[in-house]
């Protein structure tokens, strides 16, 4: 009898990829409905049903698997085949099936399902109803990939799915510029973490020869330098996703979305992804104690930062999100101290409670907890109050150091385009119109475009040379070079050059 159950559960173990695949299929189906142009009240139950069905099925599957994992002896990673491979490079479809991963996945699936049920009523008749459920399904698939992936590549795909869906939902009210602007801010801030993750994957293939978590984290890297580089990439990714210092400002701007998505992303689930990653690479981190110290430091600093900032917030979503940031800071610090098991428990329980609290946020008028009083020595200090109210200006710093140079860079590129390249060719784009030539198919059209372009260059530079187009062109090149020189003297380009150099020598 017992054997039968164990066997059945072992069989169920082979269904593990379904946990990810189900929400993904849900997203696909909803996407198909969106493309088909469904709208109106009647179209809502099917969309919500698809998402909820997928969510519930993966929840039940995970429940069965979690029970099974206590009974079964096989633990660790299960491979379900190879996705693609090249010499020295293989990506496996491997999934973690240890008890801890399964339990974390269970929590994620539960919160996901609750949020989907909640949203069915809550988003009724919203213009973006279907879009919301599509993004939620993508998010669930991505989050489960982060929790359950057996290797860094799959994990990274999950990482990106979460980033994408988070961007989609912060900008849910796409008619409000503030919402879309903040969506972009959060998206860009997360790109730094993604760069770290990608770097780590590259290094893993280069040094370890595999991106399996077990290989990365197994301590097979004898040189501490290499281990440190690898860990650095992943820790950066973790800190960015979990909104730890210095990345915290993005999460305060991420509250533009519908309440259920704010709850599940920034209150309960996604904000913990960084900690999940840290727990996953525990052996690697243990190899580099200085990284652990840095983690403990970042976590504690974030906890203090989150606590201070949370004290001055006068809106319920910000107050809750800073409370979350603070607790996640404590989890990161716990990882730094080496208490990974504790961090995992804290994470799961905190996610459940905060999810509940965040979904109840509109009730705060009724719950209205009276705030605790603080010591006057703290609260009577105007400069400190201002610093806390402004989140220690991290937001401004990020804008000054990252956003503005990027924008200026884009601005300069456009100017280069306008001033130099367009004038060199002297072409307004409209003049392509009306040319008689046309081709069929992709190849034909490509040929058409190419020939048009060649003809234009010819027109401009050769045929018009009598009219001085060539001479004018040359003079403009001279101008352009002077402009370029001027630009290169500006500090941001100097920075760019330096960064490019570093990228080459590293």
């Amino acid at each position, binding site marked *: 009898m017992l054997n039968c159950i164990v066997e059945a559960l072992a069989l169920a173990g082979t269904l593990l990829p379904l946990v990810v695949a189900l929400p993904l299929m849900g997203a696909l189906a909803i996407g198909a409905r969106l493309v088909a142009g469904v709208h109106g009240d009647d179209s809502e139950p099917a969309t919500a049903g698809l998402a909820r069905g997928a969510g519930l099925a993966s929840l039940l599957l995970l429940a069965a698997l979690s029970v099974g994992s206590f009974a079964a002896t096989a633990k660790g990673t299960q491979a379900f085949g190879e996705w693609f491979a090249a010499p020295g490079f293989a990506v496996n479809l491997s999934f973690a099936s240890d008890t801890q991963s399964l339990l974390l996945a269970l929590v994620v699936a539960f919160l996901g*399902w*609750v949020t989907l049920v*909640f949203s069915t*009523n*809550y988003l009724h*008749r*919203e213009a973006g109803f279907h879009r919301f459920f599509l993004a939620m399904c993508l998010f669930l698939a991505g989050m489960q990939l982060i929790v359950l992936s057996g290797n860094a590549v799959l994990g990274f795909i999950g990482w990106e799915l979460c980033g994408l869906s988070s961007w989609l939902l912060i900008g*849910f*009210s796409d008619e*409000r510029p*503030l*919402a879309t602007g*903040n969506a972009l801010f959060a998206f860009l801030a997360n790109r730094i973490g993604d760069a770290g993750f990608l770097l780590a994957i590259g290094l893993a293939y280069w040094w370890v020869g595999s991106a399996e978590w077990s290989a990365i984290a197994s301590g097979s890297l004898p040189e501490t330098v290499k281990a440190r580089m690898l860990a650095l990439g992943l820790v950066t990714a973790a800190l960015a996703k979990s909104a730890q210092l210095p990345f915290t400002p993005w999460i*305060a*701007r991420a509250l*533009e979305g519908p*309440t259920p998505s704010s709850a599940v992303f920034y209150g309960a689930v996604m904000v913990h992804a960084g900690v999940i990653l840290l727990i996953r690479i525990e052996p690697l981190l243990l190899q580099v104690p200085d990284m652990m110290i840095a983690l403990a430091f970042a976590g504690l600093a974030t906890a203090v930062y989150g606590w201070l900032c949370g004290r*001055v917030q*006068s*809106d*319920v*979503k910000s*107050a809750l999100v800073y409370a979350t940031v603070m607790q996640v800071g404590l989890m990161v610090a716990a990882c730094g101290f080496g208490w990974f098991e504790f961090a995992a*428990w804290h994470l799961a*329980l*905190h996610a*459940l*409670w905060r*999810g*509940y*609290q965040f979904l109840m*946020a*509109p*009730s*705060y*008028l009724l*719950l*209205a*907890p009276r*705030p605790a*009083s*603080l010591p006057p020595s703290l*609260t*009577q*200090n*105007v*400069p400190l*109050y*201002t610093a806390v*109210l*402004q989140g220690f*200006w991290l937001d*401004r*710093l990020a804008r*000054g150091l990252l956003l503005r140079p990027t924008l200026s860079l884009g601005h300069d590129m456009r*100017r280069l385009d*306008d001033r130099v390249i367009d004038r060199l060719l*002297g072409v*307004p784009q409209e*003049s392509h119109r009306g040319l008689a030539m046309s081709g069929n198919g992709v190849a034909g059209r490509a040929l058409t475009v190419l020939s048009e372009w060649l003809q234009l260059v010819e027109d401009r530079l050769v045929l018009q040379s009598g009219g001085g187009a060539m001479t004018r062109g040359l003079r403009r090149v001279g101008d352009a070079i002077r402009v370029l020189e001027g630009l290169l003297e500006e500090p941001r380009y100097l920075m760019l050059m330096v960064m490019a150099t570093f990228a080459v020598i590293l």
Partner: protein
Amino acid sequence: MSHHAAEPTTLRERLAAWVAHLEHVLPAQAPIRNFVHHNTLHGLQHLPFPEALAEAQRITGARPWLEESRCRELLAEGRIARADLEAALDESLAGDEVADLDTEIVPGGRIRDVVLIGLLHDLSPVSAARLQWLLHESDALTRPVSGGVQVGDLPALWQACGDVLGLQPAPQPASELEALFRTPAESMDDEGGAEDDAGWQIGARALWSMLVGRLGREWTLSALLERLTGENVLEEVRPTLIRHLAAHLDLGMSSWRNPKRAQGFYAAWRASAAADIGWELDEWLAAREEIARLPDDPLETIERELMHLGPDEAHWGDYLERLALELPGWSGMFLWRDRRGGAPGAGSGDEAPVPVAMADYLAVRLVLERVCCEELVHRIWGLPLFLSELGDHFLFHPAELKVRHDFFAGLLDEADAHEARRLIAGDPDTAHWERLAAKIGTRRYSREPQRWPLFLLSQHLGLDAAALRAAGPATADALLDALGRLDATARGFVWLQAYERHYREQIFAALTRNHGRRVPAGDVSAAPAAQCVFCMDDREEGTRRHLEEVNPAIETFGAAGFFGVPMYWVGLDDSAPTALCPVVVTPANEVREVPVAGAESIAASRRVRRALRLEWQNRLHRATRDGTLSAPLLAMLAAPFGALAMALQSLAPAWLGELLRRRREAFDRPLATQAAIGGDRQAPLAANARAGFSDDEQAERVAGFLRTLGLTQRFAPLVVVVGHGSNSLNNPHAAAYDCGACSGRHGGPNARVLAAMANRAEVRARLAERGIVIPDATWFLGCEHNTGDESIAWYDLAALPAARQADFDALVRDLGEATRRHAIERCRRFASAPFAASAPPAAGRALRHLLARRHDWSQARPELGHATVATAFIGRRTMSRGAFFDRRAFLISYDPGDDDGRILEAILLAAGPVGAGISLEYYFSTVDNPRFGCGSKITHNLTGLFGVMEGASSDLRTGLPQQMIEIHEPMRLLVVLEQTRAVVSAIYHRQPPLQELIGNGWIVVAAKEPESGEISRFDPVRGWLPWSPSAAEVPHARDSAAWLGTHREPLPPALLVPEGTPC
């Protein structure tokens, strides 16, 4: 400066006047827990309705009329008929213009026809790009326009339209190759002739004085600069400003406030802004020092900054108004608190009032405005912020002004805009600017945009190419002139009147057919089985109709839901008194709920247990949010319960909600209480109020109430007073679902107090002296009807005489059946209700659905509130009894035979503003929900316990959320009074508030003659307009259920004729 310093009071007084004026333009919404419906444009109520709406549109930019495309949809759906539109058109073009309307422009085409075509079809000019698409990609030139007349050759007609408008065909380049060789610069040279130079330069210089002239009157300086640079300078500082504002007004969210908060907003902001190194990070180096050097007195700052910003002194007040309107929600909340001495509002607990002065806010706004504009002007032009300097700059660079203005005003076509964008991005070469300015300046205004409307209009009028050419350019102009006859306001008003007329005709017809119908109440001389007095609320129309259907021997009444008892109420568990009466009334008496004799010990234990429960709830939510080490610990301990709650909320919200409610009540220890109407030993909590009512006061209240109802004889054995309220979860706007006549609270206590008063022998004796004899066998009962889940909670049943027990049991049965039927009726408007296409749900399922809505934390529409309310009947119930009004009518009982007009006057004065406020708030929130309403609930973020924002740094959102108005039909309230026209006219002439409300057209009033049943509508200009019934039959049905069937759309009024009775 010295001139002003010599008479400082003058500026203070002028400022006070400006601030007072702001009350006319800013939203006046109280902190959200005290949400009470009011006219969104209350400040403009002194103007006639269309004028007020046009003014609101001018000031706020919101659209006060329903979108025309939606109106046309309503026409297609049959909610407006063509005849309604024609009648409304006649009515709106009253007077001498009507004759003019019949002037024939073309054969078969009077001005009236053209105007009507312009309303029925979208004939607005289209953009050049869209025109290209219509002509080349759509079948506009091959298929006749729908609804038009076949006119043959469409391309020829299109050509003819161009010809009569005097349009020349665009010059075509000789060949593609030639086009290729013409660079933009060259073509510019061709067009920008030297001889045209002077023209545009003079124009550009005049443009500057025009722009500066609008400063203050229409624009702030930042708005002016936005028109020249495309940059809104406040974008950068707005989030910080909002953070400071929220922190200052906060009623209990944050634990750490600005240390200088007690000195007012200006001082607090200044201290913090002067310590804010954010200015340096934004590279605004001098800002911090400047802020530190600002004068201490906000008034002085206001004067200095206004002088610096440079609007004409006569327009300073306007300038401040424009400034305040940039964040209307926040400005409005600041002003609301300012007007009430900073008071946080009733019932918000122990919060000490902070100083909230509008002058503080305006001073801060002005400083920010100046600092930001200074930065912008310096960055773009390298100039200091003085209008004269900027003016000088444009005097020498008129081309720049011209290009900037036309570009940001969206006047340029695509190629010019591209070039302009390039110049604005940074091109110091004056020659480039001048070339483009000359090119723009010489472009003649074309009549091309009018061609498309003329083309469509010709098709609707059946004019073919030949006919149009024959008619000639003058006729074409006349046609286009007729098409533009109505401006946006007039169009909006015509559509509104047509919409209103459609429903009004149905109501009048139903009321007329219902007049004098033998109401199946049995023998009218016998006393009824019971009499139930409900709130006038439109939601009770359904309850009353079903109750009368269940038991025709029951009589129902309607009255404003405070039942004539304005009071402060202190419930058993309340720590502060709540005013239960319309907002405009200040109660003089306070009533407490106290334990019945002998229950004092239970009460004491209840107090302790309840405090304990709330303390732990508070501690849990607080500590998990702002604790240090307790936060993780408590959150981890609470997590399993949170998870369980989430699972149950998702699976069985109703079951969980009821379980928790029962557990809470059991824990607190249930307790029998009574209302201490005669006063209590304790001193009243409310300032300026007396504890309880004296016997004389009680008699006066009860007598006034009964007389108002017209219930002074034929008392039934049971008279039940039914207050109402609504419960919902996770709903910051909960107060908007409660009783409007009780300031957005539950009205149960008023019903309870009135019933208790009317049962006292002392009161009855005094009533008898006044001629109202209540038989000893009659017993009054109070209860509260929950409009969410249809449950009824009874008060003081222990005192019910044994002799009335049987009557009571019967009544409870009838009420139960009525609310069950009502639940089914309500389900038809909920999309998620179990409402099959073939049959409505069974009563049990419908009730369970309503219960689940109430307890479901994910339900953004716990009920539909006053959505669809459209009319109010003030008169005897016989006027509307036996007819179906789809829960769309306020029903107010009033006996016309018993009155010289004084009672009606009092009713109108009390219920008029309440009804108008509800209907108008729904109207405005519906027609432009993003601006008059507060948008969708789903992104709302509760702020400072006083309002909601979208996300974490938006304006404070006022008005109704989208979820409350989706099915509302925005029209003005039609008030039908059962009284003679003479009496109504007399009241109207006596009462200025009613002249404002009715005379300015904020509500529409009609009188129904009590004897003959004739109906006349009151027109403020033309006086009484008798209504004549049309031949159309009013629909009949056996009962409500039969008429409702499985319909889910709005249903017209119908007469309910039980089988076997003559109609």
